[in-house]
């Protein structure tokens, strides 16, 4: 039925479109002119991909420089600059065979050199030099052999670092420890190649503009005018030219893009605009505009509320009392079940808040075992399939907590909840959460104190120094493995120090959770076992209510002439930022089409992943 409608629509467009300048449109909603324009409000500070760790900066580099491997639109690994690769039996040495004949080009399209294995070695050498201020060096030296020692100056001979060009087209990485997720890290900027000679010539100027830059990717940056615009044109000599459909990308700067972009979209001056939640009502209620917007996909940023086990806040908020109650499981559980996450989410996502609510720390669709999603493994499945908000349970746990804590703690418990004033959404949410939880649990039980803190030095002042009782926190992955989501809760983390929770000590002096995580980390060969162990650890963390999972990032709505399901898919790295495989649509996707496409994509993805593991 849907297809029939689409077909009629397309026919209508052809018939009516003929009169307006003879633009050709095919039946599958592809625009005749494959050019894409968008407005952005955050200017990039550099093009030097070896230094940056900022998404909008490496999103640029992703389209200009290629990586060893890539992903397809289901998240299955595909060859990139490397055509084939192998892993040694001790799981430590990875060898890559490079694609021959790929060229480095200058900004005016002239050939500079061939891409060789040495380029990856030169890039690593640059990153591991502390003077170059690379913000991703730690990702590289967390896996590469001797890299951390080189960075810290304990080794001065770069030959000893685990990256080598065996010949012109053979590259070898030697790892510190067996790392099952190493391949997934290769699409991150610290594993990008760079031409050593060019880098040396450019010196500090490398990446400061489009001229001091070499291209081997799908696009070449033709114009780079900060605070004005950038123009990327398709690379004529790109090795995978058949999959590049959009010939020109134009980025227009506007500081007020949040307010102006929707208007620019309506006037057909750009092809993509985020629709902020403030004005979403208007777009949803206008039949004309409603057909032009669709939800965005969620990201792998994870948001959760932390209960602080090491309270360091001022005496007036009674940190001693908080320390007592937070170590009581019934108290924690009462908060766990009392937080109405949907009410909180309405401050960010007034339509369809459920799509961003997450019941686990590790988001859905992050990793899988032969098509079975990680969040559906073991006891994590039950948590991830049930909403934590439950008024009845919350009140039951409250009664238990009151009984157990009688005489030990004073009620109402003062719950210090700071928020960052830099985000008005967060300020709104803090107020919603305060009133919602106090209403449910009663102001004689808890007294949530919302505390406005300036964005300046927020993390250091609040979370890292333990200056809170209850706080909304977030974390993004560093590689495609569930281990990455345990980092915040490790003893050297700076989130809520769950290893200090009382009553969980085991014979080795460590807390149950820490032991579970360490056990999972030690399993590096059997992926099925590894994932299951991590899932159990995460289920324990959530089940004991050390934290309350809240949401994933991304989301919101946009008006866009791109199909989000055509884009490359990877939970980590730069692949998802690439325009490879994407086409500009004649007509933007609407919400129904999006939902339908999402379902179809999820089904196809499970199959593709199953096929890939075989």
């Amino acid at each position, binding site marked *: 039925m849907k297809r029939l409608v689409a077909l009629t629509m397309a026919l209508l467009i052809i018939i009516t479109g003929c009169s307006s300048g003879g633009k050709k449109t095919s039946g599958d909603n592809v625009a005749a002119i494959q050019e894409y324009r968008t407005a952005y409000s955050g200017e990039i500070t550099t093009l030097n991909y070896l230094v940056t760790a900022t998404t909008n900066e490496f999103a640029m580099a992703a389209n200009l420089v290629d990586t060893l491997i890539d992903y397809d639109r289901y998240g299955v690994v595909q060859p990139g600059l490397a055509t084939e690769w192998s892993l040694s039996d001790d799981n430590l040495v990875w060898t890559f065979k490079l694609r021959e004949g790929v060229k480095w080009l200058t900004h005016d399209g002239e050939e500079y050199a061939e891409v060789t294995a040495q380029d990856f070695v030169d890039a690593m050498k640059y990153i591991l030099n502390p003077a170059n201020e690379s913000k991703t060096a730690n990702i590289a030296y967390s896996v590469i052999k001797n890299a951390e020692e080189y960075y810290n100056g304990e080794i001065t001979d770069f030959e000893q670092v685990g990256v080598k060009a065996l010949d012109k087209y053979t590259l070898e990485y030697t790892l510190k420890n067996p790392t099952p997720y190493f391949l997934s890290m290769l699409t991150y900027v610290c594993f990008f190649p760079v031409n050593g000679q060019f880098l040396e010539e450019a010196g500090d100027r490398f990446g400061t503009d489009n001229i001091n830059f070499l291209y081997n990717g799908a696009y070449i940056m033709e114009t780079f005018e900060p*605070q*004005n615009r950038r123009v990327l044109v398709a690379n004529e000599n790109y090795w995978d030219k058949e999959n590049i459909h959009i010939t020109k990308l134009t980025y227009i700067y506007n*500081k007020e893009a949040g307010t102006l972009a929707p208007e620019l979209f309506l006037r057909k001056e750009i092809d993509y605009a985020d629709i902020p939640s403030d004005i979403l009502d208007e777009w949803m209620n206008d039949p004309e505009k409603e057909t032009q917007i669709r939800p965005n996909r969620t990201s792998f940023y994870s948001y959760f509320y932390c209960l602080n086990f090491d309270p360091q806040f001022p005496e007036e908020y009674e940190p001693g009392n908080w320390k007592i109650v937070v170590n009581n499981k019934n108290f924690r559980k009462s908060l766990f079940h009392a937080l109405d996450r949907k009410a909180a989410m309405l401050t960010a996502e007034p339509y369809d808040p459920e799509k961003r609510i997450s019941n686990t720390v590790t988001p859905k669709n992050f990793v899988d075992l032969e098509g079975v999603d990680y969040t559906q493994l073991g006891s994590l499945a039950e948590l991830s399939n049930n909403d934590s908000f439950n008024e009845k349970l919350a009140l039951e746990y409250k009664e238990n907590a009151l009984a157990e804590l009688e005489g030990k703690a004073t009620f109402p418990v003062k719950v210090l909840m700071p928020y960052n004033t830099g985000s008005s959404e967060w300020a709104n949410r803090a107020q919603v959460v305060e009133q919602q939880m106090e209403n449910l649990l009663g102001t004689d039980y808890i007294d949530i104190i919302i505390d406005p803190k300036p964005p300046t030095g927020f993390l250091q002042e609040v979370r890292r120094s333990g200056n809170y009782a209850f706080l909304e926190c977030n974390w993004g992955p560093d590689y495609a493995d569930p281990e990455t989501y345990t980092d915040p809760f490790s003893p050297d983390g700076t989130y809520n120090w769950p290893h200090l929770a009382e009553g969980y000590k085991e014979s080795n002096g460590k807390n149950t959770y820490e032991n579970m995580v360490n056990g999972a980390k030690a399993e590096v060969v059997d992926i099925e076992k590894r994932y299951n162990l991590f899932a159990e650890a995460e289920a324990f963390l959530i089940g004991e209510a050390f934290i309350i999972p809240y949401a994933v990032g991304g989301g919101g709505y946009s008006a866009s002439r791109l199909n989000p399901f055509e884009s490359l898919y990877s939970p980590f790295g730069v692949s998802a930022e690439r325009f490879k495989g994407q086409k500009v649509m004649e007509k933007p996707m609407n919400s129904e089409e999006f939902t339908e496409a999402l379902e179809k994509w999820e089904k196809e993805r499970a199959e593709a992943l199953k096929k890939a593991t075989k």
Partner: protein
Amino acid sequence: MLKYSFKRLFQSLITLFIVITVVFLLMRLMPEEGYFGDGYEKLDEAQREAILSSMGLRDPMHIQLKNFYLDLLSGDLGESIIYRAKVPIAQILKTKIPYSVRFGLAAMAISLIFGVSLGITMARSKNQLWDKMGTGYIVFINAVPAAIYYLFLQLYITDILKLPILFNPDRPVSWILPTISMSLGGTASYAMWMRRYMVDELNKDYVKLARAKGLRDKTIMVKHVLRNAFVPMVQYLPTSLLFTISGSIYIESLYSIPGMGGLLVDAIQRQDNTLVQALVLIYSSIGIIGLFLGDILMATLDPRIKLDRKAGAR
């Protein structure tokens, strides 16, 4: 006068020195987290130290200060550390200043011409139609926050007149609206003060005398009243003129004009120390020069004003 000028200019150098030193030190009070933007979280301790020391922030304060002064003396504003990492500040400013100056001068010319004539017209027809209409305009501009009427003009005027929403260097038609919007506030304020000073002057006895002498109204206005009324406004002219290089934060953000507006605020919020220092140096120099030139201009226009006479000093 010359002696006075030299004295003041010399004194200005000391002021400049104090200003940039204070700003230098204030920037060092900002929390270190700010140097990393959003990336702070993902870095480990060794990296943070490496980055901070590479930015020169780990040197002892007096060394940092000394390096800063030495660079400055050799005419080097330094390189941006965050805003556009490793790009010489002079190069950043070179591309931005022309945009702001062009728009600023155009807007200033418009508001001076319209503002002053409106003010004079209003004063001459006090409490009559022109005065009331002018007052209405002034009241409106002052009452509605600029952030609102700028956005309103941009969204609706472009729609009605089919103008492009954003600034485009290649399309002169897109320059009109930003310039006009930018001049609205200035027009209102020039008109308001011009009217005020004129009304005050018109009541003075010399005007009555001039009328009694039978001078024509126009002569009185131009030769006597206007000249006197303009004196207090003239003090601000050099400052306004020089500060056109700082751009307009609202207008430039709304219309995507790649000028200087908001650059200082941005640099401060991102803690790009070198850029902040360079901008403060420039802005305070022109601020000081502006004040000085204003005084000179005022004294030139009204010879009764004596800046340097020592006699009778209190």
